[in-house]
């Protein structure tokens, strides 16, 4: 057995991605925005390919394309030239500039360079056309893609939101969820008659319709004017339990503009969704609309119908921390035994968040491990002998070797169709995850059985 106090030096098959990738995904959910990486070309190309393979959508990421010279003398001129090109060719309304390991190491001061760029452009006559420029520091040697995502959201809010007369809008910061999840959240807010500002909104930008013309920047995304108005909203709902000990965009809005902050877990499963709907009821001043009540009722009905299939099954859950927290909450509610919760992230809050959502349900708490890679997860799997795995597609090798079904959720899904349309949130999302879990268990049982039951 491996000693957890002496982790390996090397990483094998990482269970995380690099920081600017998260920032690019966040920027992609803003209207008229182009993500821009300040660094060498390779990083941008790799991230584009990785993201495209999941969403099956175009994903342009501009790059300042630094070469050897710039790595030595500084990347300022390339950054400015790149911004100019993106502005003129894409007609971007916002450029989200994220740094990379390279530019962080050479120490380019990106906020300063961007200020200079603004001044230089104002000296010409293009001032009124200048897009909004948001900068975020995202060195991968300190933090994963989720931290990059959250850092980008926080930067957008800090650098753009303004105060003023209060509005009726509710800010909703969902974290990194699927386009289908965002569409669901929009629907829920609309049913509550709430005006929502969802940041980011990738529902169309990363899952768009067939087009007649190639759009330089896909339609959709959080409108810039809404982002500017976030300091005037009635409240901010921010999702993701592992975030909250840190400084977040929602907390910033509260401290700076007095917008009440409502931190919640990602609404996956029954009770986390209940908590979410409860806050919506408060904010909307009305009961949950009947169709969502019905969805909740059907979910409960299904949990009862299916309880025998899943009871006591052991599950390994891995991936982004907050997604794992939500899934683990739900698994505990249906009688599955989470035995390992693993993430490549290391927020320091993972264990506490898991405990908060499972404590009263589980006789035996799961192992909770931050900073894991798939080599370590595989070692645990050997010891824990799970019946199923839940996570993104990078765990497929492990599931195949171990011979347990893999329920694919989250990002990336590189080996199945429709990853961008997986619904995780709300009663409806829980319903579909439950169906998939049970069917995976039944399919395995059927396959392994010599009898070939036609009724299960």
């Amino acid at each position, binding site marked *: 057995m491996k000693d957890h106090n002496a982790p390996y*030096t*090397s*990483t*094998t*098959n*990482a269970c*995380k*991605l*690099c*920081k*600017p990738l998260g920032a690019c995904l966040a920027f992609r959910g803003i209207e008229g925005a182009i993500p821009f990486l300040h660094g*060498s*070309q*390779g*990083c*941008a*190309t*790799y*991230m*584009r*390919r*990785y993201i*495209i*393979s999941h969403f*099956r*959508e*175009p994903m*342009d*990421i*501009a*790059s*300042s*394309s*630094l*070469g*050897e010279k710039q790595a030595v003398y500084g990347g300022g001129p*390339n*950054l400015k*030239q*790149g*911004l*100019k*090109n993106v502005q003129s*060719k*894409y007609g971007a309304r916002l450029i989200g500039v994220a740094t*990379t*390991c*390279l530019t962080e*190491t*050479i120490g380019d001061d990106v906020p300063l360079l961007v200020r200079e760029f603004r001044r230089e452009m104002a000296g010409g006559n293009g001032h009124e056309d200048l897009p909004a420029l948001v900068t975020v520091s995202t060195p991968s*040697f*300190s933090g*994963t893609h989720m931290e990059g995502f959250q850092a980008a959201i926080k930067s957008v809010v800090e650098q753009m939101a303004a105060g003023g007369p209060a509005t009726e809008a509710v800010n909703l910061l969902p974290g990194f969820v699927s386009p289908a999840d965002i569409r669901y959240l929009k629907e829920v807010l609309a049913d509550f008659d709430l005006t929502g500002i969802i940041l980011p909104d990738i529902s169309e930008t990363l899952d768009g319709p*067939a*087009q*007649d013309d*190639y*759009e*330089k920047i896909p339609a959709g995304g959080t409108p810039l004017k809404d982002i500017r108005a976030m300091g005037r909203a009635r409240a901010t709902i921010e999702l993701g339990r592992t975030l909250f000990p840190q400084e977040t965009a929602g907390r910033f809005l509260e401290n700076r503009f007095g917008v009440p902050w409502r931190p919640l877990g990602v609404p996956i499963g029954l009770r986390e969704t209940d908590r979410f709907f409860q806050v919506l009821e408060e904010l909307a001043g009305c009961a949950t609309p009947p169709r969502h009540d019905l969805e909740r009722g059907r979910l409960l009905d299904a949990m009862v119908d299916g309880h025998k299939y899943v009871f006591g099954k052991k599950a390994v859950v891995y991936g982004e921390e907050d997604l794992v927290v939500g899934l683990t909450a739900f698994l505990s509610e249906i009688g599955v035994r989470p035995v390992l919760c693993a993430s490549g992230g290391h927020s320091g809050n993972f264990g506490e968040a898991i405990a908060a959502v499972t404590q009263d349900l589980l006789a035996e708490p799961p192992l909770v491990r931050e900073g894991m890679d798939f080599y370590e997860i595989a070692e645990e799997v050997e010891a824990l002998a799970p019946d199923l795995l839940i996570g993104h597609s990078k765990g497929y*090798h492990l599931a195949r070797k171990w011979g347990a079904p893999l329920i694919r959720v989250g990002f990336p899904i590189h080996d199945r169709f429709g990853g961008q349309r997986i619904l995780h949130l709300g009663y409806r999302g829980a319903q579909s995850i439950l169906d998939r879990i049970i069917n995976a268990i039944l399919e395995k049982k059927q396959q392994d059985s010599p009898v070939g039951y036609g009724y299960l």
Partner: protein
Amino acid sequence: MEPVIFEERQTQIHRKGTQPFDLACNKDSLAGAVSQRACVFCGSRVVLYPIADALHLVHGPIGCAAYTWDIRGALSSGPELHRLSFSTDLQERDVIFGGEKKLYRALMELIERHSPKAAFVYSTCIVGLIGDDLEGVCKKVSKKKGIPVLPVQSEGFKGNKRAGYHAACQAMFRLVGAGDTTGISKKSLNILGDFNLAGEIWIIREYFKRMGIEVVANITGDGRVDDLRRAHGAALNVVQCSGATMDLALMMEEVYGIPHLRVSYFGVEGMAESLYSVARFFDDPEMMARTRELVREELAELYPRLQEFRRALTGKKAAIYVGGAFKAFSLVKAFRLLGMEVVLVGSQTGTPADYQELHDITDEGTIIVDDSNPLELSSFLKEKDVDIFVGGVKERPIAYKLGVGFCDHNHERKEALEGFVGMLNFAQEVYNTVMSPVWQFVPRKVRKAA
């Protein structure tokens, strides 16, 4: 609206028949353009990746390794160490204090765990900046562990993919010459520049076997360290693809006097001519007879079936944008064989000579382009109203968004496209794409019909 072509890129685009041909290429990517190009590291990784019994450790922050984990369909008939993604996952303190110690420990740990035949250590951008002595660490570990530990100087920012090919070749060249070459036939060769995607190198090896030739080393598809070490015992290097492994062939030519032939296994003409040229090299009438027989047999089987595809596909339009120009040549010819018209052809890393050759083999009006980007490509696709676009995974969504057919001819393909049978697979895929009913419903076509 602004023209879709960046002014600075005008010289990297040519329309055949409009002016004298003089395409600029091998330029650095333009800042702010969304280039489809990758980095030096990517070039090295692509070339060395299929060596299946070696340890491939990426020294750098996590991304560079994570994005290259098991992404290619380079198959192995034995060990599969290459399919794991190893990284030193550098953290802030390593960047400040240097990553040598971490690299040393990671290497020792992984070599102990997996007992590889050799280890490749890839340098990434950060490592180039913090100045780790890769060579020194590798030497030390090599001595301790008794296997070759080879640094690959692949700092991303030091050029484009082609520089990465070069770095990979230099690393491999350090292996060549160390093995025992007794017993290798006079009629023998190394296969360079085939990566065994979807088992392609097995098809090619089988052809050589039928011709009576011994294959010493696969470089690098289904590759083995020990084969590489005795590769200098072969009589000939056959090199596919213009960029990736040519440097190694040249080094072997210089040091060991092994001549090389440039070949292509893609398309009927390319494949047949490649086999004939090898037979001519060995100057053996019996081998030539066997080769003729082989080609005849294969074609007899292939042609009738190709004719069916040809009937359906004649007059359809194709666009090509691939990594290396050499592949583009083969594709142009293959589409011709299917009766199709090539209206756009480009590459990420072509040389002036490559582009001249493309210019010579294409029709009037064909657009020739170097280091393109999504905006340009999409405008060309629309202008030329193409039926199928051949590219890599980054180009696919551009085509699909516009409702244009697409064929992945890149490292992620899962169908064998080489050899005579590969031509048939290719024709089948083109047919399945072009003849799909879905295109008639997409906005682009509906509007035109209205």
